């Protein structure tokens, strides 16, 4: 590894951390698409800032672009408030319009502006180490490293200072308001941080990767934990891991670094989406299958309780009567046997005492409509767990 490679990985990791923190809150507040809107609509801000300063890394440009981001949020909320269209439509209307203005501004001034829409959307991390910050003739590292480092520092400071406020207002807006934290200020604070992060990161990694780095690590972490602190930590770890592994994938394929970081994020999400212990697709499907069997067992026991006649309780008869497949009937029968709910005597099934009590309780459960009473009964029916 040469120093440029280390610097690229360092920048990518810092961007990943800086994005993961606001991203976690955006995902929890169901505002993930706002980050997409901001990342597109900062374009006119960047272009106008560039006209004024002629420098892509100037602080004024970041401020202007962040301002455009906040304007986007304000516009979206204004349209939502009029009630003329649904909320998501408002987002979908605002950012393409602002983005179009940006594209047209670039196109009209193509001759005296060295700004490419592709570069804004996709970014080129590989070039980041060549734009160096020189103070008093001493080279102190790439400019983007300093920019994103500063943003990250501010973000972390704000996170630590306002963690409690953020937490409360994210999960219970009403409580936050009644405790005296203004949800509006926190909301716009978060939006400003998101905008600034997007702007600071875009010229290194591009607008789309910013969105990916905000949403994907947070969403992946959300599948694994429901604890805010753990979620933040996991999101940061996922972000950094994909940033570094993505860099090496790009190195190997000789392709865009931003693209391969996103691809790694995607792979990571796919793995967690499938295999997460309790919320992954496989776990959910397995649980649904178990629940189906549990319901079948209940049906079966109720049937037994309803019939005392021997011919109704014959093993073969049950199969045709409840209209179950052979395998399913066998599973249910075995489950009931294992739990000592029934005894099979000479192919005639009958309820044991435990089974009888269980079934009576089940009838209670079914006819009770009050949630509070059901709550402690529920556990009795989860035969597979506990």
């Amino acid at each position: 590894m040469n120093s440029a490679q280390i610097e690229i990985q360092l920048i990518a990791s810092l961007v990943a951390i800086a994005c993961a923190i606001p991203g976690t809150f955006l995902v929890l507040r169901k505002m993930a698409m706002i980050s997409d809107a901001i990342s597109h609509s900062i374009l006119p801000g960047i272009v106008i800032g560039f006209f004024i300063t002629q420098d892509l890394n100037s602080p004024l440009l970041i401020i202007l672009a962040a301002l455009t981001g906040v304007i986007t949020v304000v516009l979206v909320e204004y349209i939502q408030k009029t009630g003329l269209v649904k909320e998501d439509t408002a987002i979908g209307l605002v950012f393409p319009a602002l983005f179009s203005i940006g594209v047209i501004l670039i196109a009209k001034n193509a001759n005296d502006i060295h700004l490419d829409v592709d570069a804004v959307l996709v970014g080129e991390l590989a070039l980041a180490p060549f734009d160096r910050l020189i103070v008093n003739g001493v080279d102190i590292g790439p400019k983007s490293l300093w920019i994103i480092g500063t943003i990250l520092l501010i973000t972390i400071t704000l996170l630590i200072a306002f963690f409690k406020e953020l937490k409360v207002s994210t999960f219970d807006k009403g409580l936050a308001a009644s405790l005296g934290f203004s949800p509006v200020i926190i909301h716009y604070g978060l939006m400003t941080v998101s905008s600034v992060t997007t702007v600071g990161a875009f010229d290194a990694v591009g607008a789309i990767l910013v969105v990916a780095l905000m949403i994907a690590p947070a969403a992946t972490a959300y599948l694994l934990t429901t604890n805010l602190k753990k979620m933040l930590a996991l999101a940061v770890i996922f972000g950094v891991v994909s940033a570094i592994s993505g860099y090496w994938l790009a190195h190997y394929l000789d392709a865009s670094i931003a693209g391969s970081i996103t691809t790694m994020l995607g792979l990571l999400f796919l793995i967690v989406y499938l295999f997460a212990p309790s919320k992954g697709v496989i776990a959910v499907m397995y649980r649904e299958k178990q629940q189906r069997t549990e319901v079948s067992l209940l049906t079966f026991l109720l049937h037994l309780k309803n019939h005392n006649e021997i011919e109704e309780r014959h093993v073969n008869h049950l199969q045709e009567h409840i209209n179950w497949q052979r395998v399913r009937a066998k599973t249910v029968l075995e489950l009931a046997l294992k739990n000592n709910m029934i005894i099979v005597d000479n192919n005639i099934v009958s309820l044991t005492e435990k089974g009888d009590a269980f079934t009576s309780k089940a009838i209670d459960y079914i006819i009770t409509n009050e949630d509070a009473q059901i709550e402690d009964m529920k556990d009795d029916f989860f035969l597979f767990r506990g």
Partner: protein
Amino acid sequence: MDLQDYFSLVFSDYTLRTITLGTAVLGAVTGMLGSFAVLRKQSLLGDAISHAALPGIAIAFLITGAKDSNILLLGALVSGLIGTFWIRGIVRKTHLKSDTALGLILSLFFGFGMLLLTFIQKQPNANQAGLDKYLFGQAATLVESDVWLMVIVTGLCLFVLLLFWKEFKILLFDADYTKTLGFNTKFIDVLITSFIVLAIVLGLQTVGVVLMSAMLLAPAAAARQWTNSLSKMVFLAAIFGAFSGVFGTAISASQTNLSTGPVIVLVAAVFVVFSFVFSPSRGLLFKKIRFRKNRRDLKLHKTLAFMHHIAATHDNISHPHAIKLLNNFQGFTRKTLQKLVEKNYVTLNGNMWSLTEKGFETAANLYTKQTTKDE
């Protein structure tokens, strides 16, 4: 070239005619299907799908090595559909919300697409140039066969829409009821979603990945303001879409250095803003006017009630009183007084007013009877 030249050229110039027709047809079909997307609260689906189509284009190119736009669009369609169904899977199977799912699929697919595109660019295949036109769209690259494809898809879409109109409509407004009626809701749902994906993919070449969502949303959002009937909304959205296409093309052709996609989107945005402000029943302007009118009526009632209080203390209800009496009362203005005179509730005589028989009657029944039809 100015606008006048443009309109004379539309009929003679092949390229211009093709582009104008293409954008018009595209606007119409996206407007139509966009109405459903907007009403189904799937507005941002368009944004997600158009981004998710990118890897499909790249993979189709990697497999065939040719730049046949039909095959590339097929790839885009497949990857758009995969994206859509993954979004549904995420929302249904996990506790992640739909906005997170949309943002995830959008950025992850797009990033993967960019990886493939940059990978393709490094390949020793001279054919690859121009794939990135799908990013921002280039209406100028439209040829007649593309327009024909659009027309065919639009026709197909219209046919399916008419055939399943009742099903689409009922699913849109009451999904549970549809299920109880025995319709296969899953099939209808997949059908309409697939057509939305198809329309989005079709527009990629013209307006590009980023702006496609606006093509889908803007005409429908504008049309929604003018009507409460689905058929009228779909029709209006198609018209708005087509006009945005034509005007956008005209404006961008009449200026140098203006790409068509963004101009079309801005024209559509103008339609939206206009509808938001000037729509008679929902528009902001008329809402404001109605609001003020109601407030004025309320003030009029207040004044009348106040007069009634004074007049009721006298035997003769038409006993004249000084206008000054009304001065310390907020509801009173010259205009309301004039209005009361017009309605024959009050007669004015110099500085004095007096209640008429009719005015007294109305004022007495102001809060007991619903006699507000003329206020």
